[in-house]
């Protein structure tokens, strides 16, 4: 009894030192990782003359919120926020619903060509959006939806489906068949089982998929760049691209504009991160 505990006591200092060093290393990397945001915040709340005089890494000797007002107007944020919110709110629920329906058919119903369809849909994960740009531009023009944020709906749905189906299919497949049997005995059809049993049981997966899908919808640039052109119809990434060009030499205004664009997202991320992390992990496991 005494010999092993003496040995443990001797080893204890080393056991404490190593984690301490690791923690210190981690903290240094984390501060470094976060530092771009710190410099942005410091710059956005100081006056331009203070910034030019003392540089970005000094403590501010002035305090102002004027940069934010200026950047808000020049960056068209009121319209880009509205447009991005509009397409995200419309696109995500539709995308999740139709993907869930397909995933349900693949996971739980007797579907002809099942494996072929799965392969064809999952292959979409690998396809870069730019292969579709030219023909889609033509299609959307024929639909009269060029320079309309809803012109993005079809392409965004299509490019979201592979990931959504992959995650939901793997989740649905793990739901035991026994749960449906009682309902089937009572004569419930597939729709009833889908809406009354499958969806409520899968709520965590649905929320996760919806959040990840909202992030990629919100952030998409290339399709929006091709399909939208007037300022009033631009989404947030497009507006920011514009703003970056205009404000190239107004360092404090640019910092404020970047923060206007990213802080709401970072807050949402901090609140929802549990779902995002489980979603990434679930998306990666074997479907």
């Amino acid at each position, binding site marked *: 009894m005494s010999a092993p505990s003496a040995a443990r006591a001797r080893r204890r200092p080393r056991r404490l030192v190593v984690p301490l060093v690791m923690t210190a290393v981690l903290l240094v990397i984390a501060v470094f990782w976060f530092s771009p945001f710190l410099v942005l915040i410091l710059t956005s709340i100081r006056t331009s003359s203070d910034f030019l005089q003392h540089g970005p890494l000094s403590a501010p000797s002035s305090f102002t919120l004027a940069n934010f007002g200026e950047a808000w107007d020049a960056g068209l944020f009121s319209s880009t926020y509205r447009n991005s919110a509009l397409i995200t709110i419309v696109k995500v629920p539709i995308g999740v619903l139709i993907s869930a329906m397909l995933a349900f*058919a693949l996971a739980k119903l*007797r579907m002809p060509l099942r494996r072929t369809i799965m392969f064809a849909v999952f292959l*979409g994960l690998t396809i870069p959006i730019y292969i*579709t740009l*030219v023909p889609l531009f033509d299609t959307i023009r024929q639909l009269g939806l060029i320079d309309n944020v809803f012109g993005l709906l079809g392409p965004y749905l299509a490019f979201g489906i592979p990931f959504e189906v992959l995650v939901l299919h793997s989740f649905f497949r793990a739901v035991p068949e026994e749960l449906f049997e009682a309902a089937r005995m009572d004569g419930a059809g597939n729709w009833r089982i889908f809406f009354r049993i499958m969806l409520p049981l899968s709520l965590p997966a649905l929320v996760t998929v919806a959040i990840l899908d909202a992030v990629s919808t919100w952030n998409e*640039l290339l399709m929006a760049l091709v399909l939208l052109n007037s300022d009033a119809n631009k989404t947030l990434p497009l507006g920011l691209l514009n703003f970056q060009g205009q404000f190239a030499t107004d360092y404090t205004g640019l910092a404020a504009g970047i923060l206007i664009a990213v802080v709401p997202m970072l807050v949402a991320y901090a609140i929802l*991160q549990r779902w995002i992390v489980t979603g990434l992990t*679930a998306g990666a496991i074997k479907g």
Partner: protein
Amino acid sequence: MTATLAAPPPTARRRPRRGGASVWLFALPALLAYAAFLVYPALQSVELSLTDWNGISPTRHFVGLQNYVDMFQDDTALLALRNNAVWTIVTITVPVVLGLLLAVLLSGATRLKPLLRTVFYMPAVLPLVAIATIWGWLYEPNEGAINVALRDVGLGFLAQSWLGQSSTALLAVMIPAIWVRTGFPMVLYLAALQGIPAELYESARTEGATRWQQFWYITMPSLRPAHYIVIALSLIDSFKVFDLVYAMTYGGPGNTTQVLGTLMYFNVFRFYHAGYGTAIAVVITLIAIACGIPYVLSQTRAERR
């Protein structure tokens, strides 16, 4: 759910399935959207890539494989292809190694783990345009934080126009990409590390294994499924590069940071070479599909095991 990252997936039991016409009602909305806005336009692009279409004119002529032949004689296209290869290698290797390192360090730091995981993954949720704007601002030659910091610590001779010169521009665009892409492998590795039974480490310790030995003989082999997934998904993602390059350098200076995605965009929408531009898109898509197929097949077949 997370445990399967570290262990082989449980074998699925074959279940009875219900069919009928309603199966197609479930499947069709998503399949139609997918076919109409992804599969069909992608195939149309293949057809367009065999023409001399300028993108506006009502007429176009079939030119066979001429656009593809031209591509291999176009120095800019070859440079873009090379840049894509460099991009793929660097923005997979560095984030995967760094993500693994962070995950291993974090898995030991129980109390700090949630906070630091949030910090390291944070850049990944932002639009790439925002990332590009942040870094363009940090790289600014005169007042940007990076050059100012270098001057402050007496390394002023290293201060330079990071994005404005061909020798550093590609590297300068890849650094923000690394900042964005390290969080994903870290999150996956963290989940996988949780799935490794603690008893393995305990018995290794009683047999006197060093930390390094534990890492190589227990951690790394247990992470094999995670490595596969991380690398496959990073590879698929890396061919989609467009936003960062477009928003930071426009492919410049003098095309030195051009990748196939941006080159395709400029050819179609700036130079009115729609046929040639789509041929570039077809090439990169074929490469992406070829690299992605093993992963797609593993996802399709998973339930057989």
